[in-house]
């Protein structure tokens, strides 16, 4: 009844091709942005912003990058943690070695370094497919794990191998408090989400989707596989690299290579699959699910009033997490984004049954 397109006529191509053609969608997004930018910083506690919303935003950015590679282009990659690490360490080196380097510039340059590495490790995808490629990308993961521990230059010759950044600011505004960090991440994520959405709606996005669906047929109609696959790796690694720089600089403050280990790669892949392959919105849903669920499970015994040992709580969390993953895959293999779009379809007809 409320979610109808009746009366909304478009009179220009531009209007017809906008990301949210339905006015109700535009209002909803505007409200969401208002809540995110205004209500949350004013109303929500520091703990929530620091420990829940900021990691959620950064990981959803990384999941967005991975979704472009896995969901839109169909190349399974298990080495995302590696690209995050490259982005973080490269940004660190630019930040520390060049005096007066602006934060945004070092993060973007970190992303570019991740792009180079991503393209390098994406070259095997031209020959190797499917599960073999997935396991081959683990080579990237383990190689960067080793490189950032062993090659002293990357960590600015710190004796322990751990690096830290402090005193971040953008154009003179400090990024220290929980609110400032949250707003900074939010701005970066919104900008990148918009760019990514437009990218996947464009010609190159269609090339990626053609490669995913049937790469031989795509090559037959003139889509160059090298170009499509490598650009997918490049764009995806850039976004993941920037997310890695955000994770290290903004969320952790001081990190070691173990922060970007294979667990992180699996976590991001979970987010993408649960959220929905091939959907920008899905990355956010997946990230919310994966970030909030363990915290929720952790706090649940306390809320329900009985106390159990932390080891048992941790194991139960793992068990329930695994069981919910399987449950979600059975119930909706296309992810939460598909659930969302089904809900929207039903909403169009509501309150009528058909």
């Amino acid at each position, binding site marked *: 009844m409320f979610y109808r397109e009746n009366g909304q006529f478009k009179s220009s191509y531009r209007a017809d091709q906008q990301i949210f053609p339905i006015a109700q969608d535009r209002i909803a997004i505007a409200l969401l942005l208002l809540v995110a930018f205004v209500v949350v910083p004013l109303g929500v506690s520091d703990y929530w912003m620091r420990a829940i919303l900021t990691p959620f935003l950064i990981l959803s950015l990384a999941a967005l990058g991975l979704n472009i590679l896995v969901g839109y282009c169909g190349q399974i990659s298990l080495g995302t943690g590696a690209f995050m690490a490259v982005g973080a360490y490269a940004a660190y080196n630019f930040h520390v070695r060049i005096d007066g380097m602006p934060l945004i510039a070092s993060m973007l340059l970190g992303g570019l370094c991740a792009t180079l590495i991503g393209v390098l490790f994406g070259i095997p995808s031209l020959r190797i497919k499917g599960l073999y490629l997935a396991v081959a990308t683990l080579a990237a993961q383990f190689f960067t794990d080793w490189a950032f521990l062993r090659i002293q230059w990357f960590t600015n010759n710190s004796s322990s191998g751990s690096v*830290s950044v402090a005193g971040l600011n953008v154009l003179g505004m400090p990024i220290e408090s929980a609110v400032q960090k949250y707003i900074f991440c939010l701005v970066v994520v919104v900008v990148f989400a918009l760019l990514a959405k437009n990218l996947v709606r464009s010609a190159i996005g269609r090339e990626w989707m053609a490669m995913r669906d049937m790469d031989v047929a795509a090559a037959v109609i003139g889509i160059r596989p090298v170009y499509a696959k490598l650009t997918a790796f490049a764009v995806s690694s850039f976004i993941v690299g920037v997310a890695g720089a955000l994770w290290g600089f903004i969320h952790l403050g001081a990190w070691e290579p173990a922060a970007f280990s294979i667990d992180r790669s699996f976590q991001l892949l979970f987010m993408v699959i649960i959220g929905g392959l091939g959907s920008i919105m899905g990355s956010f849903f997946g990230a919310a699910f994966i970030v909030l669920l363990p915290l929720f499970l952790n706090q649940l015994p306390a809320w329900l009033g009985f106390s159990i040992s932390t080891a048992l709580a941790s194991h139960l969390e793992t068990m329930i997490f695994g069981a919910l993953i399987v449950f979600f895959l059975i119930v909706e293999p296309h992810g939460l984004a598909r659930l969302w779009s089904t809900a929207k379809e039903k909403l169009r007809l509501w309150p009528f049954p058909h």
Partner: protein
Amino acid sequence: MKLKSIALTAALVASTLGAVFAPSLAQAQAKEQFFPLLVYRTGPYAPNGTPWANGKQDYLKLINAQGGINGVKITFEECETGYATDKGVECYERLKGRPGVALFDPQATGITFALTDKVPSDKIPLITLGYGLAASQDGGVFKWNFPLMGSYWTAADILIQHLGKKEGGLDKLKGKKIALVYHDSPFGKEPIPLLQERARMHGFELSLIPVTAPGVEQKSAWLQVRQQRPDFVLLWGWGVMNSTALKEAVATGYPREKMYGVWWAGAEPDVKDVGANAKGYNALALNGSGPDTKVIQDILKQVHDKGQGTGPK
């Protein structure tokens, strides 16, 4: 359908009750200090982390049983980190807002690094007992870090001096080979600068053999030890790496008498599994061990005998 809505209402009621009672509980704890304990009872470091966490809890319970510190009781809550930095940061953020937070003990070097940047602005002391940032011994720079009982530099130094004493003088170390089998992480890499400096001072050859975390498969490290035939091996591991190292030493025939572990490589879980083959292995110890020390006796008497012990005796 009906069952579902009943269940839903019950959950809502339970959570609201919990939320209602929580603030009043906080007010009742005015005369208490809160020690958040970041522990890891799961993951590859659990064999060492679990007894350590149990011991910490038992000791705090002992202090409470003896009347607290000047009459102030200690409350504590454990938060599971699994030795992961981001979980440690999340635990820190969640627990730092509690009333009466006295200090933080991260129990892990990686988490220490991350929290070192945060404690100055939150003004909470960060206690690191025998681990953490070795450079934080400089209190002028790291004002909120309190490394107790020595750092990794102290540990490495003590080991070298002990070896020197065994040989009959530090100058007798000249020309000897000492291998460091270390956990490839900031924890394992901390002693390297000091050992390199000592190698320069006394003329012994230092070889560095890293073991990729978590140290589950160490055959190549110990084949290298066999190839180099060092006079001594310093073991700088944690968790499952320690027992695996001892087992590989057995398998490659390196005499355990020549192995010296840092205090994190010298606990009972590390050798229990290896059994009789670990005989002769040496390690540093920060504390008295065995059931005869007074502290252990007190804990057994005042905590475990009253049924309040954490974990097995």
